[in-house]
């Protein structure tokens, strides 16, 4: 009966597919990570205990393994301020970089949306074009540009803006350049999508009702583009919090982002349980802005 209904309605399968995908490639692995985060590190293969092996220990073994799990790793994350500082640095870097991108991305998206219709797809391709080159290669290119005798210093010196080469590499500036450069399209595209939908008639209506251009921008364009702002901010903020490559290659090594700390725990210290706990907390931290965003959207749909 059930099977017949499923076959009669292929739409049902299609509806289940994303959940299946999420279960298989997100929930299940995440369950492993959560389990490891509750384990203790050990010199073994795999490098933690207990190992749950239902095939060997059966139900009793499973129960014994569960009893060994503890929250010790999470206590460590709170007690040792290396981790707290890393989280804070990640959030700060992500917030600053996202704010910079919003400031740069909004005018670009606005300009794109105001282009004649036939030029808009061209502008869109120009925004996307960098993706055709590997992200890693583009970051290495930035190392080249920012190094002591790189393109940036040569240009600045040729223009007589500086006399001595400036140290760019291994600074936060370099890291912000790399992050903003890499993530900017993720900010521009949702902003563009919401600004392109804006009816020019609404701006005329605002002008008709007594708004100067600037006022009309603040009172009509900005509020209507807020969903785009929200999407762009989330699309940038969340991955930047967990960013590892850019700070590792461009920033100094004195202050680490949480992604770097996690990498250290996992690969250098071989402490899988602590690395897993770090990842679990990171996910929890990232869920907060998501939930806030959803709340805001719901409120916008409501009566305001």
């Amino acid at each position, binding site marked *: 009966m059930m099977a017949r209904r499923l076959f009669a309605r292929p739409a049902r399968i299609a509806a289940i597919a994303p959940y299946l995908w999420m279960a298989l490639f997100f929930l299940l692995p995440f369950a492993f990570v959560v389990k490891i985060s509750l384990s203790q590190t050990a010199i073994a293969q795999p490098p933690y205990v207990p190992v749950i092996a239902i095939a060997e220990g059966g139900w009793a073994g499973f129960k014994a393994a569960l009893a060994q799990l503890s929250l010790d790793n999470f206590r460590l994350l709170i007690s040792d301020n290396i981790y707290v500082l890393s989280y804070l640095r990640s959030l700060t870097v992500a917030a600053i970089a996202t704010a910079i991108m919003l400031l740069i991305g909004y005018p670009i998206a606005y300009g794109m949306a105001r282009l004649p219709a036939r030029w808009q797809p061209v502008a869109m391709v120009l925004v996307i074009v960098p993706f055709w080159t590997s992200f890693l290669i583009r970051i290495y290119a930035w190392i080249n540009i920012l190094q002591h005798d790189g393109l940036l210093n040569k240009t600045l010196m040729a223009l007589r803006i500086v006399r001595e080469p400036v140290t760019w590499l291994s600074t936060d500036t370099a890291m912000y350049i790399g992050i903003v450069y890499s993530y900017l399209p993720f900010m521009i595209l949702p902003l563009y999508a919401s600004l392109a939908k804006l009816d020019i008639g609404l701006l005329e209506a605002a*002008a008709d009702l007594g708004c100067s251009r600037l006022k009309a921008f603040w009172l009509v364009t900005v509020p209507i583009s807020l969903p785009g702002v929200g999407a762009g901010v989330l699309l940038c903020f969340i991955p930047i919090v967990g960013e590892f490559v850019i700070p590792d290659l461009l920033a100094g090594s004195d202050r680490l982002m949480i992604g770097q700390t996690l990498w250290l725990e996992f690969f250098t210290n071989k402490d899988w349980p602590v690395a897993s706990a770090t990842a679990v907390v990171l996910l929890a931290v990232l869920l907060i802005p998501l939930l806030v965003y959803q709340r805001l959207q719901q409120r916008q749909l409501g009566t305001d």
Partner: protein
Amino acid sequence: MDAESPKPEAMPVAATADAPLLRISSLTKRFAGYVAVDNLSLDIHAGEFFALLGPSGCGKTTLLRMIAGFETPDSGEILLNGDNIVNALPHQRPFNMMFQNYALFPHLTVEGNIAFGLKRLGMHASDVKDVVAQMLALVQLEGLGKRRPDQLSGGQRQRVALARSLALRPKILLLDEPMAALDKKLRESTQRELLELQRKLNMTFIIVTHDQDEAMTVADRIGVMDHGRLEQVAPPRQLYEAPRSRWVAEFVGDVNVFEGKMTGEEQGRVMVETRDAGTIIVPKPQGADDGKTLCVAIRPEKIKVSQRGPVNDLGGSAAINRLAGVVADVGYLGNATVYSVKLDAGAMLRASVSNTTRLDADSYQIGQRVVAWFVPADCMVLEQ
């Protein structure tokens, strides 16, 4: 083209005030490749309901948008109480526009939309609230103030747009095809409400429309536009019964037009020998000379159709025009029946007969011989 109507006795009281509220003088607007508004002059008087009527692309919307300030004219002046406002920005003009697609702010509630302009005036919050409540009552939308535009029906949205544009008490309310998106029944009731509202508030309205019924229903005066020029400005009745040109006669309502030459004159009437409808007797036009080419225009509802024509001694029957022919087509419209009569002289003539009784015995079949007749006074003589 002179914008003033030639017969002032038909003008409404409101339009006879001395100085016009708005004077448009030699206004021209060119867009790439064509002239949208061509050296146009027009006076609008306080308290008037004025309609700009014309086919799409005639420049009526461009004219309205220049009045609102969304388009800058290439030359000419727009005078409000004598002051040239041609360089004023839209938000500096004491006009408000009701947009064709309503242009309601989707991120604001109905109240927020109506309050938008009031807040820009720096009005106190409690006063804003009062005016918004008044406006909601005016357009009968009480209780819907907290809704968003996407939670309203088309008719409700239209009312919100109206309330929003009226809230600021503009010197002139500009309406750009305000009922284009409504269905016929709703459009008719809305037209009546709009007219009542205009009378009640004693405001000046300028409406742009391509719907002549709408213009006739609401307007004190109608300006008919074509190719960026005003073809005629007149009250509805005059526009219909005394069109200035063949184009206006054909654009406003239905009309039969026959071209011909003047051949004789008697008792203030002239004979016009038409090309394909025989000789037609018409009232003598001004400055008419023998041999001049004229157009005789007659509205279908002014023509009677019968089997033998009128009884002979019916009030100076000698002057009645009788055109014999064969019924070629019958169009039943419910309230009227439109007969297409193929005249013996060659032309096709349309006559609209009111169906005044439910079971009408006097209906004619295709192929039946009939006489179409009408009195000279019902004929309009137009320049080509």
